[in-house]
């Protein structure tokens, strides 16, 4: 028997040359106004903020900071458009506009993918293959519903709500805009949407698409800004529906502030999903699932599989294979087509992640990071796992929202299930086993909005998405997603 250490070597030898996506096929304006009533207008107070490329810390553009007065203008435009043409238009005609948005998005897919990666730091492979195609798919899907709403809810008469105020996060900027805008429009509502302050650019480009698609002015209004702008939308008295995706902390504030107002709302909040690997799983594919679950989009995924529960008899094998696999993950320039893990979205998010790395070590878990080099400038975090984590640790209980995985072991199915459910969150979960019966048992008992079996992070516009417990209220996507934008009268 060989006594040499059996470790695979990935660092020397044949390497991939840089394969950057070019940035000469589109332009980004130096300054963007607010998209209100079908045109870009200057903010009333004249204030702007900069959006930077998190991979280089270079400023990309400057974007209007919407004040309360600007939000009021946007809501008024939305109300006017609602009372005017939009709420009276036939579903078939509304559908035509939404189909048009979907098609223009597809035509400009390369531009959108590149801008998404520039502004947010996610690898171009993901924005190109996942974010942008899925965003277009959401518009296509809901466009199809626009003239079929009465068939979606048999025996009920669906009616639009009015003006929808929507606040979205920075992890999937365009995709979240699509999740919010497409069903709202299909159901006959008008929209005021605020993208996250670190990733406003694809939403502003989407405003161009909406303008080019010829939507009546005011049907979709896009205002940029930070928390105060979002609060102004949520609290505006003439908003009928609030849709928010973001942190549980902000979700709580929103729920409190709209209590008693009669506003309909959906909240898609945090998560701390368990990815449960049984000994009889296809181990190599399960390792891929772990990687996909936690390192997809730098772990900036509310449904990320950030807790790994692995059955004790295969724990060593799974962890050693995972470490080996982590060595092959390419961390770096988000625009390089071979990059697997891009930049952390912002300095403050990096700070949060780093504070949890310290917490994890202080709690006694063992930290392992891949040995890759990261660039000097920009915000980066190596793929990280903690072994020997415990249910009582903060790194197991709290959402880190970064490429950081907490690993625990379990012996029996019941123990795995109890640990999986022992969290204030309930957005997603994963089960890995070759046994069908075990899949059914686990997926029925994991309290989460979506549970994947032998795969992870699969999204489709036809499938509803949303959380239990502190992961949120309501569902987006699929037929369920229509319900959130309709009054269903008997």
């Amino acid at each position, binding site marked *: 028997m060989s006594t040499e250490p059996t470790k695979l070597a990935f660092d020397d030898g044949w390497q991939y040359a840089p394969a950057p996506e070019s940035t000469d096929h589109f332009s980004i304006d130096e300054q963007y106004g607010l998209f209100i009533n079908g045109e870009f207008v200057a903010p009333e107070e004249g204030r702007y903020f900069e959006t930077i490329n998190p991979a280089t810390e270079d400023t990309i553009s400057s974007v209007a900071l919407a004040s309360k007065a600007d939000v009021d203008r946007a809501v008024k435009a939305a109300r006017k458009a609602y009372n005017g043409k939009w709420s009276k238009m036939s579903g078939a005609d509304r559908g035509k506009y939404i189909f048009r948005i979907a098609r223009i998005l597809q035509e400009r897919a390369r531009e959108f993918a590149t801008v998404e990666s520039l502004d947010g730091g996610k690898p171009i492979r993901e924005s190109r293959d996942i974010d942008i195609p899925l965003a277009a798919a959401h518009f296509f899907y809901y466009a199809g519903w626009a003239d079929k709403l009465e068939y979606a809810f048999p025996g009920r008469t669906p009616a639009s709500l009015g003006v929808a105020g929507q606040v979205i996060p920075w992890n999937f900027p365009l995709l979240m805009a699509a999740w919010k805008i497409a069903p709202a429009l299909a159901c006959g509502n008008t929209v005021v949407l605020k993208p996250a302050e670190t990733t406003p650019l694809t939403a502003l480009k989407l405003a161009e698409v909406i303008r080019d698609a010829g939507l009546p002015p005011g049907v979709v209004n896009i205002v940029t800004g930070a928390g105060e702008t979002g609060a102004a939308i949520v609290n505006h008295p003439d908003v009928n529906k609030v849709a928010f995706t973001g942190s549980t902390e902000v979700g709580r504030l929103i729920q409190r502030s709209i209590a008693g107002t009669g506003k309909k709302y959906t909240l898609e909040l945090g998560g701390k999903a368990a990815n449960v690997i049984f000994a009889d799983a296809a181990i190599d594919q399960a390792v891929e699932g772990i990687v996909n679950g936690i390192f997809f989009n730098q772990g900036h995924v509310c449904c990320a599989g950030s807790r790994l529960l692995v059955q004790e008899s295969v724990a060593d094998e799974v962890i050693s294979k995972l470490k080996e696999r982590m060595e092959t993950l390419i961390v770096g320039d988000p625009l390089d087509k071979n990059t697997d893990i891009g930049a952390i979205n912002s300095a403050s998010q990096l700070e949060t992640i780093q504070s949890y790395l310290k917490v994890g070590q202080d709690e006694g878990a063992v930290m392992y990071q891949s040995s890759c080099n990261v660039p000097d400038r920009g915000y980066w975090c190596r793929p990280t796992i903690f072994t020997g984590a415990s249910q009582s640790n903060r790194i197991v209980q709290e959402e880190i929202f970064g490429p950081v995985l907490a690993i625990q072991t379990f012996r029996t199915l019941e123990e795995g299930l109890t640990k999986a459910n022992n969290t204030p969150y309930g957005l997603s979960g994963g089960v890995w086993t070759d046994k069908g019966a075990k899949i059914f048992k686990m997926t029925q008992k994991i309290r989460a909005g979506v549970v994947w079996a032998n*795969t992870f992070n699969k999204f489709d516009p036809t499938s509803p998405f949303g959380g239990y417990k502190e992961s949120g209220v309501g569902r987006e996507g699929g037929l369920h997603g229509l319900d959130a934008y309709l009054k269903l009268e008997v």
Partner: protein
Amino acid sequence: MTSEAVTSANRMPDLGRVTLVDEVGVRERAARFQARSIKNESKTEALRLVLSMIDLTTLEGQDTPGKVAQLCQKAIHLHDALPGLPHVAAVCVYPTMVGVAKRALGNHDINVASVATAFPSGMALRQIKLEETRMAVAEGADEIDMVISRGAFLQGEYGFVFDEIAAIKEACGDAHLKVILETGELGTLDRVRRASVLAMHAGADFIKTSTGKIQPAATLPVTLVMLQAIRDFYFETGRMVGMKPAGGISNAKLAVHYLVMLRETLGNAWMTPKWYRFGASSLANDVLMQLRKQVTGNYQSADYFSKD
């Protein structure tokens, strides 16, 4: 490798404990390798590596000594218009052509691989398979590409298959043994993985996907499963086993993605002709065309490359 290691490896493995394979997951992972973008100098380097890993193959009933001799010339002189190219790893022929190939290759550092064991069906008695193997080696074959008895494997006669591979390995003497699983007949990736484990424990120096006579032949998912089996065997025993996808890899881009998969699954130690081969007849010319294009920026007509 000490002889002790071979003995300890040469035990029938418990196939019930072989890691399961999820086909959907394997396909997704294989697709990821194809999303890698290989450009400029890394492409040139990969193309040259591919050339050096080719087992230039002719396995036809119509093979003639003349054809084989010309193929051997091609193995030595891939495309002299591009100076400094590597030569292929081996020429792969039927046993009757081993002598011809051996003479044609002369002192060049190119191996002669011979298929044996009633290739491609494997439907012969063991005595005949052993005799065929010994005769091919006596003719000068440096490598033997055997086929497993798929019928016995599918019937669950794992012991029979194990013993057969071990016996052929012994008959090979110093020649290297590549074991063809003929994955197109195995039906599931779980069986591919089990057959890989069985062959490696029985003494295979290489495991190989296909004869090229059965469809589907080599695919990225099948090859990935075999590479993962090789990796786990290496962790278990410390012994490196080579990999040879064969059949259906006819264009350079696909071959480069096979290398991407190799690099990200087994790492750099396997990135040499010693541990990785492509079984192919038409791949070499497509690689040469690509290499030419890397130099001149233009694609040349196929007529500028010798067809053998």
